[in-house]
């Protein structure tokens, strides 16, 4: 029961996955999509197991004060903060705030004469407002804009990500004055202020810098490993130098032949070798896939103990 049933499940789903590619029938297609959703759900919910695993590994190290335990605390705290900040707390609080609109009691004769209306906007200095397509920066003090009568849309938004923009539809008659107050609220969750701040200022600089380290490691690997010990290494070395000169604009400055040689290296030998690896790997992959489906190789199905 513990081993044979999962084996048959594997064989059944594996064969279905192979067959599905060759059967255009829409029911089969729908069923296959459904299984894909299952797999995606399994992969996604495994992330919770991932979090549990990190806790299982780091918590004992902190408790036993093993070397570097302080850094494990940093790891857990930053993960917890990012998780908490990722939940949409703003949905729990008061309902969404809409901008308040007040209308002046008396109509303004001079404005009415010109057949115009006026909208005053009072917002903080980091809020930009857009009236009928024209946008301007808020200054904390009331700003008056003349508009044509009728329904005018006023959009208030903050430049930085993480705030929900507010829109107010104000219908003004000729000569009427309306004042609009509003403060785009800060939101939490994935597009929230703090989440995006952490993403922009901690996640992406670290990510970009670790990637940039490769520029240094490429140089040290070139120094250490590109030594013409034998024919193969010499060919590796020569092709690399030709490609570097050929593709860089400097190479074209040296001579027009270099880019062509580089392109030829890319088109003929490199492609030949590449196709061989692709085909070899594909054959190996299909054989491995078949082994798994036909149950020849079962190490992923675990032991009976």
């Amino acid at each position, binding site marked *: 029961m513990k081993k044979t049933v*999962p084996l048959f*499940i594997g*064989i059944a*789903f*594996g064969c279905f*996955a*192979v067959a599905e590619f*060759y059967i255009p029938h829409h029911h089969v297609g*729908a069923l296959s*999509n*459904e299984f894909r959703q299952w*797999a995606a*759900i*399994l992969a*996604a*919910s495994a*992330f919770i197991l991932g979090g549990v695993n990190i806790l299982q590994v780091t918590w004992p190290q902190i408790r036993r004060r093993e070397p570097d335990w302080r850094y494990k605390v940093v790891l857990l705290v*930053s*993960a917890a903060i990012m*998780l908490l900040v990722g939940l949409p707390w703003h949905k729990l609080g008061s309902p969404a705030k809409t901008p308040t609109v007040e209308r002046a009691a008396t109509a303004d004769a001079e404005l009415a004469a010109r057949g115009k209306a006026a909208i005053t906007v009072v917002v903080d200095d980091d809020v930009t407002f857009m009236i009928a397509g024209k946008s301007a*920066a808020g200054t904390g003090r009331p700003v008056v804009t003349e508009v044509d009568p009728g329904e005018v849309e006023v959009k208030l938004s*903050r430049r*930085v990500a993480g705030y929900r923009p507010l829109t107010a539809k104000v219908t003004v008659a000729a000569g009427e004055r309306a004042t609009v107050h509003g403060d785009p609220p800060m939101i939490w969750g*994935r597009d929230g202020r703090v989440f995006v*701040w952490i*993403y*922009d200022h*901690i*996640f992406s*600089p*670290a*990510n*970009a*810098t670790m990637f940039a*380290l490769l*520029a240094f490691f*490429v140089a040290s690997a*070139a120094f250490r490993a590109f030594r013409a010990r034998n024919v*193969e290494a010499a*060919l*590796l*070395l020569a*092709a*690399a130098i030709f490609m570097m000169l050929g*593709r860089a604009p400097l190479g074209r400055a040296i001579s027009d032949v270099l880019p*062509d040689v580089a392109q030829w290296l890319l*088109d*003929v030998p490199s492609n*030949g*070798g*590449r196709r*061989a690896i*692709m*085909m*070899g790997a*594909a054959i190996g*992959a299909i054989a*491995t*896939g078949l082994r*798994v489906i036909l149950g020849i190789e079962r190490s992923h199905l675990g032991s009976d103990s």
Partner: protein
Amino acid sequence: MTALPWVDIVGYWIGIFLTICCLSFLYKDNPFYKLAEHLFIGVSVGYLIVLQYGDNIEPKVVGAVFRGEADGGWWVLRLVALVLVLMMFVKVVVPRWSWLGRYPLAFVVAFYAGLQINAVAQAELGAQIKFSAGNIDAVKVDLNTAPVDALIALPGSSGLVATKLVAERAQRPFVSVDDAVTRPSLTDLERADLAGARGNLIGLDAKAAVGPGQHDAFGIVSNLLLLAGLLSSLVYFYFSIAHRGVIGGVSRFGVWVLMIGFGASFGLTVQGRISLAIGRAYDVLGRTVDPADADRIHGPVVAVVSIALIAAGIALWERRARRDAGDQAGSRGQS
């Protein structure tokens, strides 16, 4: 554009400080790198779980089962997915029932293996065999009769050039490649492009000619070389015979082709990696930010200060580490 709030300016400073921390890894493993590493891993784990819930679990499970938005699949089927998830959780939490976990794993591994078999068979194997088994004879494009998209593919040509050539040849057929390249309706830039692409190895003269059925000798040699490289590399991957004698020679040639390919790929990547470091330098120097903000962030100043701080910190840490090592050696007597 309103001014950048203070919080974000401090954010950029932290970003620059973390950049220098990560770069300190080049010198050696040190507390600043450990801090940046663990902070980075923590933030990324939090980010992932929030995203995975928002994009996979919420719409596909909560949405499908509780709000009935199961597109196509009836929500009953989606319950099976939930059962599989629970079985996987049981495997980790309750070791005694861990064999339950084999069901979801068997499904996932086998299902994906099946999908991959066909994806690989089609895109990697079938497509590559189809294109390799093609005609190796390289016939020159006949400028007078070739269709537009064959003209576009010529070196130095483009959509506009191709349409002009077609119009030109309608009036007066081309006498030679030089004649086609210098026709009046081509602009100077296009003429310069075409002139720059001449050459009888892989240039315009190799690929195009006037009159049908002319062969591009170097093209044929290249195709033959490609085929030879392909077959000999495949022989290198042959497991059933020891690589000695003739087979050994062919597979050695195959390895040479592979090595040229890897060298070319390495050479290409060097350029990519360096541009990453350039990009990083751009960000720190504030060139990828709005100039008004850059003036308030003072990127270069903060970078220099961070470097000084971290260098001093590492020096201090190393002296303390040497002193601790010294104490241990001292306390254990002259070992």
